[in-house]
């Protein structure tokens, strides 16, 4: 029988009952507080009452614990809220103790009823009560979360143990009557509070345990207390024990300190009492001494003693304030002392008023004054009471010490027992575990051994099958039908597809398909063929990209726990390719192919034959071959066919005859037919290949015609045409060629050139011909040919390789050559002539140069001398000469200067003819501007209107051309001198043949009749007195322009201005350098 459910039910019952009891305890206390019943609040009126908020907490916590058993959403929320409030408030209370402040947290809820006034402490929550509430509150919160976190449960469990233990400890303390335990220095815990905590701890612990175990039980149908839980429980108990020991130590130390304080206090009281007694004696002595001696000092002492007495009394009263018995005695003592003092005072009054005798009388009579003996007795009373108290306190101290030792011993024993029990439990648990582990290990070892055994046998069998798979000559693989991934491949597959095993195992079967096959593959896989499946021919792609045809057979299997397929792939690429190739060869053959069986029936035709005859394949198959022949040949054909079969040999059909085919539309066409017998399994067949030779026939005709045309053309050509064969034989000669060769066509044709022209093999012509025959490249040459009769002729030859040999085109250039040579001779003579002339010219030039040099040097020297000496003469002999003589000298000087200018300009002119020209591209606009700048002096500030046009760039010597402009512009400036509004225009005329430039002025002009003279050296049309000048400027212009290959001319009217033109050739780049 399993007792667990019963135990769990009992636990639940205990928890619930305890919870209700706690709530009841709390409720009773509250009622006590409300109705002012101390019994209700503290069970016994000797004990302190339960604090009112403690009572409320108990009610709340009891109900909460009960509610834990009905964990609806609201209940759990309520529990958490209650727990939170309790934790917060109790925490504050603990803080009050620890940090010594007082906000009266525990009095917020309940005011203290009057019945309790005077009781100290009045309904304050004890420190340990607050601590316990902290534990309980946190446990409640943790439990409300339990089921979610197991470790929370564990903490709550420990908490509840602590609470129950503390509750129990406080109860025990009450029963042992050890108030030092349940009460501490300030506020003790009430008995009913202790009971409440015990019950609450039990209730919560039961709740934790039962809930936890019932979960475990439901899950495992088995109940055991785990080791960690036991340790936790032990920890809880140990913690409680330590806490209890802690409380006891704390309390006993507090008590000891209190006793020590009280003892000191008692001793103080005793000392004070004896001091009082001596003061009284002093007072009596002093009063008596004064009366006897009448010394004032005695009176002062008396008064001091009275004061001392009252001081001592006050001190004693305050020291024994807490002792009502003593107070009573002190009051009596006080009155006695009062009377004594009054008596003393009276005595002194009497002494001073009536004299010593009266006073002595009074002292003797002692009217209504207590005696010293009375006072003594009373003081002793007080002393005795005080000593009694001291003894009593020492007793209590002793007892409590004894009790403490007892309780310490008890707790030590308890803790030891607990530890021993814990150790035993843990040890038992560990031993049990070790045994179980050992058994388990043994079992494992056995199982491993069994597995080893099984594995070995499995491996052996697997090895056999693996061999079948691995070394299968055909590619095999297994793939997962879900993921299509390869699971296993054999060596043949690896070799055939080129992927390594590792590569295969990362691929899917899609990866070995060409892209266009993947759709078909996925479709096929989706169809889920059961068992063996011949999937037909597929295209696969190898790693190197080649696509192969494979015949696939597959079988569904379970492999390595997966749905898979075993696939066998048979490469049929070669087979299908061979078939395909054969079919294509037949189909694509440019000749018509027909296969005929023994009976003459057509077995096979190709598309070319269909096209040729205009029949479709189906119309021909199984028909007689004679269908394709014209009527007239059929009989003969049947005979020939039978003849062929008796001697089957490959041959061309119908040699020497024109064969014709008959189309479906009845037309005939020329054919050529080749026949070959073939041996097939179904017997001998004849394979005929038919070629339509219509176009060939036409081409042959056309060729013939064209050949004739070319032959006629060649015959009629002006040039000689001949074709020499590779054997040096004349194959063709036209009339012209025969005539050139001083022969006739008949003599030449058919003979070799070696025969016709012996010795030709040594000529340059023959060498070229030979080259042309071998290298087949066109050669051209001009050759002098020596005829057998000794005469020679020049020929321009073109040797053209043609298929038959070499075609020679020859032109007789003998006459032309003769003319060329004559021309050449003439030209050479002419060149000689030119050279001769040039030499003459050069010589003349040299002479001229020498002349001009001597002019420049030798003519100038005398001039200079004339000038120099005439000058010197003027200087030295001027006074001696008359006016006339001086004028002569001046004329000499002017003439000399003019001569100098003439010589200089003449030199320039001569140099113009001699100096070398330096041609370059010349910007005429720039040139004109430069010339104008040069002439600024001659303009001499005159207001001339210049019109300068735009000019093209020309080729020429820039410095010479500048001189041209300088001369022309200088003239223009000079001859407009007499004009009031001189105008000069420089321009360019467009002319298709040459550049024409002009300089026009509105000057004095000249008579056009003398134009020719203008450009001559030293030619002038004006008197020197009119317009000075040397007559060389325009001669220079002409000379320069002429050297540039241009012309000069002028237009003018007298007084009507003049225009000077010069032209330069277009695009002239090279000038003669004369």
């Amino acid at each position, binding site marked *: 029988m399993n007792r667990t459910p019963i135990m769990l039910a009992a636990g639940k019952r205990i928890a619930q009952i305890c919870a209700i009891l706690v709530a009841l305890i709390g409720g009773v206390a509250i009622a006590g507080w409300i109705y002012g019943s101390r019994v209700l609040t503290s069970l016994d009126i000797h004990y302190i009452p339960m604090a009112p908020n403690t009572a409320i907490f108990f009610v709340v916590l009891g109900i909460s614990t009960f509610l834990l058993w009905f964990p609806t959403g609201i209940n759990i929320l309520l529990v958490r809220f209650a727990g939170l409030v309790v934790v917060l408030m109790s925490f504050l209370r603990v803080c009050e103790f620890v940090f010594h402040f007082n906000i009266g947290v525990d009095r917020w809820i309940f005011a203290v009823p009057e019945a309790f006034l005077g009781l100290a402490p009045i309904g304050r929550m004890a420190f340990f009560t607050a601590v316990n509430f902290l534990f309980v509150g946190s446990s409640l919160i943790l439990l409300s979360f339990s089921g979610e976190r197991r470790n929370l449960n564990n903490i709550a469990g420990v908490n509840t143990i602590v609470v129950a233990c503390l509750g129990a400890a406080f109860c025990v303390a009450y029963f042992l009557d050890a108030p030092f335990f349940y009460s501490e220095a300030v506020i003790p815990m009430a008995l009913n509070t202790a009971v409440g905590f015990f019950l609450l701890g039990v209730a919560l612990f039961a709740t934790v345990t039962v809930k936890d175990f019932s979960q475990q039980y439901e899950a495992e149908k088995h109940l055991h207390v785990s080791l960690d839980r036991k340790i936790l429980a032990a920890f809880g108990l140990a913690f409680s024990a330590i806490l209890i020991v802690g409380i006891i130590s704390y309390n006993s130390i507090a008590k000891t300190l209190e006793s020590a304080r009280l003892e000191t206090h008692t001793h103080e009281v005793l000392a004070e009492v004896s001091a009082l007694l001596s003061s009284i004696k002093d007072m009596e002595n002093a009063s008596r001494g004064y009366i006897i001696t009448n010394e004032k000092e005695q009176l002062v002492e008396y008064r001091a003693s009275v004061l001392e007495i009252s001081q001592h009394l006050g001190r004693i009263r305050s020291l024994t304030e807490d002792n009502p018995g003593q107070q009573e005695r002190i009051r009596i003592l006080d009155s006695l002392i009062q009377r004594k003092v009054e008596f003393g005072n009276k005595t002194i009054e009497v002494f001073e008023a009536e004299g010593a005798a009266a006073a002595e009388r009074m002292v003797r009579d002692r009217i209504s004054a207590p005696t010293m003996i009375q006072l003594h007795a009373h003081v002793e009373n007080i002393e005795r009471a005080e000593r009694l108290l001291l003894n009593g306190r020492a007793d209590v101290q002793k007892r409590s010490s004894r009790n403490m030792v007892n309780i310490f011993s008890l707790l030590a024993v308890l803790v030891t027992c607990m530890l021993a029990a814990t150790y035993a439990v843990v040890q038992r648990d560990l031993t049990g575990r070790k045994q179980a582990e050992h058994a388990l290990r043994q079992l494992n070892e056995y199982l491993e051994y069994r597995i080893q055994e099984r594995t070995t046998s499995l491996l052996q069998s697997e090895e056999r099958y693996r061999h079948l798979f691995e070394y299968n000559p055909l590619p095999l693989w297994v793939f997962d039908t879900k993921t299509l991934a390869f699971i296993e491949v054999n060596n043949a597959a690896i070799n055939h597809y080129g992927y390594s095993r590792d590569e295969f195992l990362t691929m899917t079967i899609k990866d070995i398909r060409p892209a266009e096959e993947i759709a078909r593959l996925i479709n096929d896989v989706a169809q889920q063929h059961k068992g063996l499946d011949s999937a037909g021919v597929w295209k696969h792609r190898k790693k190197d990209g080649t696509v192969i045809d494979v015949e696939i057979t597959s079988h569904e299997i379970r492999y390595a726990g997966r749905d898979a397929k075993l696939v066998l792939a048979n490469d049929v690429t070669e087979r299908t390719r061979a078939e395909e190739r054969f079919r294509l060869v037949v189909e694509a053959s440019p000749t018509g192919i027909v296969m005929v069986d023994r009976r003459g029936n057509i077995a096979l035709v190709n598309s070319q034959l269909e096209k040729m005859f205009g029949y479709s394949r189906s119309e021909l198959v199984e028909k007689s071959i004679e269908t394709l022949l014209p009527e007239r040949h059929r009989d003969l054909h049947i005979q020939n066919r039978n003849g062929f079969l008796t001697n089957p040999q490959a041959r061309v059909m119908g040699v020497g005859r024109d064969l014709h085919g008959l189309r479906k539309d009845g037309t005939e066409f020329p054919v050529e037919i080749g026949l070959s017998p073939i041996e097939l399994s179904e017997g001998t067949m004849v394979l005929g290949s038919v070629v339509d030779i219509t176009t060939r026939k036409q081409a042959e005709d056309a060729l013939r015609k064209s050949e004739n045309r070319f032959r006629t053309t060649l015959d009629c050509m002006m040039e000689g045409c001949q074709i020499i064969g590779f054997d040096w034989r004349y194959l063709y000669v036209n009339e012209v060629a025969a005539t050139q060769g001083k022969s006739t066509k008949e003599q030449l044709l058919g003979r070799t050139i070696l025969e016709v022209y012996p010795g030709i093999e040594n000529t340059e012509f023959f060498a070229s011909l030979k080259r042309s025959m071998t290298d087949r490249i066109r050669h051209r040459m001009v050759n002098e040919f020596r005829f057998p009769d000794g005469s020679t002729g020049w020929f321009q030859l073109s040797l053209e390789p043609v298929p038959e040999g070499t075609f020679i085109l020859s032109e007789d250039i003998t006459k032309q050559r003769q003319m060329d040579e004559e021309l050449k001779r003439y030209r050479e003579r002419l060149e000689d002539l030119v050279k001769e002339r040039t030499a003459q010219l050069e010589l003349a030039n040299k002479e001229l140069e020498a002349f001009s*040099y001597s002019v*420049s*040097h*030798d003519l*100038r*020297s005398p*001039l*200079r*001398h004339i*000038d*120099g*000496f*005439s*000058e*010197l003469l003027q200087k030295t002999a001027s006074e001696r000469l008359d006016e006339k003589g001086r004028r002569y000298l001046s004329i000499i*000087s002017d003439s*000399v*200067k003019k*001569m*100098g200018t003439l*010589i*200089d300009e003449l*030199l320039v002119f001569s*140099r113009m003819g001699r*100096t070398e020209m330096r041609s370059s591209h010349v910007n005429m606009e720039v040139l004109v501007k430069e010339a104008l700048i040069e002439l600024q002096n001659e303009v001499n500030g005159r207001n001339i209107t210049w019109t300068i046009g735009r000019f093209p760039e020309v080729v020429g010597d820039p410095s010479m051309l500048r001189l041209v402009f300088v001369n022309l512009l200088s003239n223009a400036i000079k001859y407009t001198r007499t004009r009031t509004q001189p105008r000069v225009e420089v321009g360019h005329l467009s002319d298709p043949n040459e550049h024409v430039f002009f300089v026009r002025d509105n000057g004095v002009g000249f008579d056009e009749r003398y134009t020719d003279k203008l450009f001559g050296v030293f030619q002038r049309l004006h008197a020197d007195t009119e317009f000075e000048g040397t007559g060389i400027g325009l001669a220079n212009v002409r000379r320069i322009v002429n050297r540039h290959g241009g012309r000069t001319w002028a237009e003018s009217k007298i007084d009507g201005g003049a225009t000077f033109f010069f032209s330069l050739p277009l695009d002239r780049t090279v000038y003669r350098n004369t």
Partner: protein
Amino acid sequence: MNNIKRILLAEDNVNDIELTLEALADHRLANEVVVVHDGAEALDYLYRRDAFKDRPMENPVVILLDLKMPKVDGLEVLRTIKSDPDLKRIPVVILTSSREESDLIRSYDLGVNAYVVKPVAFQEFVEAIKKIGAFWVLTNEPPSRKS
């Protein structure tokens, strides 16, 4: 040593010599002019030969050289001077009637220091000679003798 700055004038024409000296005299330079009448004589003077064996050691401060001279012409004299390490630093001024381009080019190619065409007009001639004298004798700084 005679420290007078001497001018060597090589000129065959006596009229030219006279006019030149006249022009130099205007500048008070005439008494420092040594006149030679052809190229050979000029070279004799420079190399202290024959008639000029005892001439002072000092080289002329400038040589005025006519081109067209008997025996050895001016260009030849120029070539000899400019190719001799001891003489080449003497400034040479060609003084000639020739304005021929070829003469100019050859003279400059041989390293002439100046080329002056004798003007026909006497006044201009005098000016030219004065300038030459003034420049080469007074203004120009020759290298120190020993260097």
